[in-house]
C-alpha cells in the first residue's frame, strides 16, 4: 500500500477531470465554427442540405456542450479545491484571463440559447446566421483565455517574487507571456481540426454503410476541405511551438526527444526504447530534423537534457506522447489531402471504402492527439506547477479524502460518458437525415 499523499491524488484527479473536460471542450470550441460554415454555405448556395446540416450538428452539439459545461464547472472549482496554494498565488497574478473567460462563457451561453430556439423565427435566414457568430467568438475566446493561464504556468512573468512576497504585478504582462502566441494558436486550431474530423467521420461512416445521400456527401466534403486547411495550419503552428520550447523550456523538448547531450545537427528520434544508460534502440532517426524543429537551421545547437539537474526534469515517457501527437497530425494532414486529391484526379474512387475508413479513424485519432498533446505539455512541465517558481506538490491541497473524491469523480465521468454516447446515438438513429429532409423541405430530385 502507498501512503496517502494528497498531492498525488490531486494530480490524478486534476488530470482525470481535465482529460475528460478537454474532449467536450475541444468539440465545444470547434463545432460552432463548423456549424457556422455549414449554415453560411447553405445560405450562399441556397441549399437546404447545408442548412439541415447546421441544424442537426447544432442539435447534437447541445449534448456535448452540456457535458462540457458541467465538467468545466467541475475543473474550475477543483482548481481551488485541489490546488489552494497555487490558486492563492495565481489569484494575485493571472486571475484576469480566468475572469474574462467567464464573460466569454456568458456571451456564448446567451447566444447559444437564442440560436437553438430561433431557427424559424426570422424571415431572413441571414439574421439567424448572425446569431451563431457570437457563439463561435465566445467559444474561441474561452479557449484563448484559459490557454493564456496555462501559458503563464509554463512561462510565468509579470511579477517579482521577493522573499515569498509578490510585488510589481502586471496582469497583462502575465497574460501575454512568451508561451501565449504559439500555445493559444495551436490549441484553438487543433480544436477546429479535431472537430472537423469528428463530424467528417460521421459522414464517412454513412458512406461505408452504403448511404450515398447527397446530404452526407456534402457533409463529408465540407468537413474534409476544412480539415485539410486546419491540418496544414496545425503542422505550421506545431513547428512554431517546438521553436518556443527550444528557447524557453529546453528541458521539455529535450525530454520529449530523448536528446541528452547538447549538440549541433541534432537528429529527431521517433519511437524506440530507452535503456538505463540513456541508450536508445529501435528508433527511427531523422537527421538534422530536431535542429530544424528547434531553430529552423540544421546546424544549430540543441540543448540536451544532461544540462539540467535530474530533480528538474520531466518523466521521459512523454517522448511517446509527443510522437503520437505529431504522428496523428501528419496522418490527418495526409488523409484529408488524399481525399481532395482523389476527388480531383479519380472521382470514381472518391467514396472508396478504404479512404472512408481512414477518415472515420481520423475522428477518434484527432481527439486522441489532443489528449496526447495536453498530457505531454502538462507532464513535460513537471516538476513545476509554475515553471521554476513553484513545484507541483507545493501547490497542492493538504486536505483529507482526496482519494475518495477521486473515486467519486471516476464514477461520475463514467456515468456521463456512457449516457451522453447513448443519447447521441439514439437521437440520430431515430430521426435519420433523409427523413428529416423530406419532412422539412419535401422531396428533391438531386438527393440521390
Amino acid at each position, binding site marked *: 500500500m502507498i501512503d496517502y499523499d494528497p498531492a498525488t491524488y490531486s494530480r490524478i484527479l486534476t488530470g482525470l477531470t481535465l482529460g475528460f473536460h478537454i474532449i467536450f471542450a475541444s468539440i465545444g470550441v470547434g463545432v460552432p465554427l463548423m456549424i457556422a460554415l455549414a449554415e453560411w454555405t447553405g445560405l450562399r448556395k441556397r441549399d437546404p442540405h447545408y442548412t439541415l446540416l447546421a441544424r442537426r450538428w447544432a442539435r447534437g452539439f*447541445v449534448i456535448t456542450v452540456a457535458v462540457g459545461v458541467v465538467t468545466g464547472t467541475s475543473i474550475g472549482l477543483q482548481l*481551488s479545491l485541489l490546488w*489552494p496554494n497555487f490558486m492563492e498565488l495565481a489569484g494575485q497574478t493571472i486571475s484576469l484571463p480566468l475572469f474574462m473567460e*467567464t464573460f466569454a462563457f456568458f456571451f456564448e*451561453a*446567451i447566444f447559444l440559447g437564442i440560436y437553438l430556439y430561433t431557427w424559424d423565427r426570422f424571415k431572413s435566414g441571414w439574421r439567424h446566421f448572425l446569431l451563431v457568430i457570437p457563439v463561435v467568438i465566445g467559444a474561441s475566446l474561452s479557449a484563448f483565455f484559459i490557454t493564456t493561464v496555462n501559458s503563464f504556468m509554463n512561462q510565468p512573468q509579470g511579477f517579482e517574487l521577493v522573499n515569498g512576497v509578490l510585488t510589481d504585478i502586471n496582469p497583462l504582462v502575465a497574460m501575454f507571456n512568451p508561451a501565449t502566441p504559439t500555445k493559444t494558436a495551436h490549441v484553438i486550431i487543433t480544436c477546429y481540426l479535431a472537430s472537423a474530423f469528428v463530424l467528417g467521420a460521421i459522414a464517412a461512416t454513412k458512406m461505408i454503410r452504403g448511404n450515398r445521400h447527397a446530404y452526407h456527401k456534402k457533409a463529408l466534403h465540407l468537413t474534409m476541405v476544412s480539415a485539410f486547411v486546419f491540418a496544414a495550419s496545425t503542422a505550421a503552428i506545431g513547428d512554431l511551438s517546438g521553436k518556443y520550447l527550444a528557447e524557453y523550456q529546453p528541458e521539455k523538448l529535450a525530454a520529449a526527444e530523448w536528446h541528452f547531450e547538447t549538440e549541433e545537427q541534432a537528429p529527431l528520434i521517433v519511437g524506440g526504447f530507452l535503456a538505463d544508460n540513456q541508450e536508445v534502440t529501435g528508433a527511427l532517426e531523422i537527421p538534422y530534423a530536431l535542429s530544424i524543429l528547434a531553430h529552423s537551421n540544421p546546424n544549430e545547437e540543441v540543448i540536451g537534457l544532461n544540462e539540467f539537474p535530474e530533480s528538474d526534469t520531466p518523466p521521459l515517457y512523454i517522448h511517446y506522447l509527443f510522437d503520437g501527437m505529431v504522428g496523428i497530425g501528419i496522418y490527418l494532414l495526409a488523409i484529408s489531402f488524399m481525399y481532395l486529391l482523389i476527388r480531383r484526379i479519380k472521382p470514381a474512387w472518391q467514396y472508396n471504402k478504404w479512404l472512408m475508413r481512414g477518415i472515420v479513424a481520423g475522428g477518434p485519432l484527432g481527439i486522441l492527439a489532443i489528449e496526447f498533446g495536453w498530457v505531454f505539455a502538462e507532464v513535460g512541465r513537471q516538476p513545476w506547477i509554475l515553471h521554476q517558481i513553484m513545484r507541483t506538490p507545493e501547490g497542492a*491541497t493538504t486536505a483529507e479524502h482526496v482519494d475518495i473524491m477521486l473515486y467519486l469523480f471516476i464514477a461520475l465521468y463514467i456515468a456521463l460518458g456512457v449516457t451522453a454516447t447513448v443519447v447521441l446515438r439514439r437521437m440520430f438513429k431515430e430521426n435519420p437525415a433523409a427523413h428529416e429532409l423530406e419532412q422539412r423541405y419535401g422531396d428533391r430530385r438531386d438527393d440521390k
Partner: protein
Amino acid sequence: MNLEILGMGVLWLFLYGYMIVSSIDFGAGFFHFFNKISRKDHQVNSLIQRYLSPVWEVTNVFFVFFFVGIVGFFPSTAYYFGTALLVPVSISIVLIAIRGSYYAFNTYGAKDSPVYSFLYGATGLLIPASLTIALTISEGGYVNVSNGQVRLLYGELFSSLYAWSVVILAIISVLFISSAFLQYYAQKAGDNTSYRLFRRYTLFWSLPTILASGLVFIGIRQHNPEHFSGMLNIWWMFGLSFLFFSLVVYLSYRRKRLGTAFVFVMLQYFSAWFGYGASHLPWLLYDELTIYDGFVNQTMAWSLIAAFIAGFLLLIPSLYLLMRLFLFDAAYIRGERK
C-alpha cells in the same frame, strides 16, 4: 466606498443573481418531475420546458462567475475555503454535473425518460442544500485552522441547529421562488390549469418560507452572537424583506399583478441577502479572514474591475435580447412560436 467592499458587492450581487435564477431553474426541474409522477396535466410541463430550455446554461454561468471572481478578488479564500470545503463542494459539483447534463439529455435527447427526469429534479433540491455549507462555515466555528492545516469539523457542522436551518431555508426558498415565477409565467401564457397549480404552490410554500427564516435567526443568534447583533443593527433591511414578502402573498392571493409580485419576491430576497451580507462584513470567514487581509493586490483589483465593466457592457444588451425573445415574447410563452 473602498475597493474591497466594491469587489465583494459585485460578487455578492452575482451570487444573488445565481440564487434567483437557479432557484427558478431548480424548482422548475423539481416540479417537472413531481407533476410527472403525480400525473398532473402535461401542459404544465411543456410550459416549464419552454422557459427552461433556452436559459439553463446561462444560469450556470452566474455561479462560475462567482467562484472565479472570488478567487480573483480574494485569493486567500482559495486557501481557506478550498481546503475546508473539498468534500462538500465536490459533492455539490457531482450534483451540478448530474443535473446539468441529465437535464440536457432529457430535453434534447430522443425521448423523455423518467429516470433522467428524476435525476435532475431531485438534484435540484440537493444542490442548494449542499452549497449552503459554504455560507454556513463562513460563520466560523466549523473550521479548525492550526499549524497551516485547515480542517472542516464535521461533528460541529452536522449537529448544528444553524447549519440545518440554512439548509431548510434554502430548499423551501427554491420552491417558493420558482412557484412565484411560474405562476406569473403561466398566467402570461394564458395557461389556466398551470396557473392555478402554481398559485397553489406559491401560497402553500409561503408560510414555511417565513418560518424557516425565523429558524435561521434563532440559529445564528445561538451560533454567532456577534453577527446576530450586526443584523439587529440593520434590522430594517429584514423588515423590508418581510414587507415585500407580505405583498407577494397578498398579490398572489388576490390574483393580481403577478409580474409585480415576482419583482417583490426578488426584492424580498434582495434585502434579506444584502442585509445578511452587510452584517457579515468585514469577515469572510469569522475570526480568520477579513475582506481586508484577503484582498488581491491593487493592480489586479483595478484590472478585474475594468474587465468587469467591459464585460458587463457586453452582457447587458445580450441578456436583454434573450429576455425579449423568450421571457417577454407572449407568443413564445404561449407556445405558438417554436
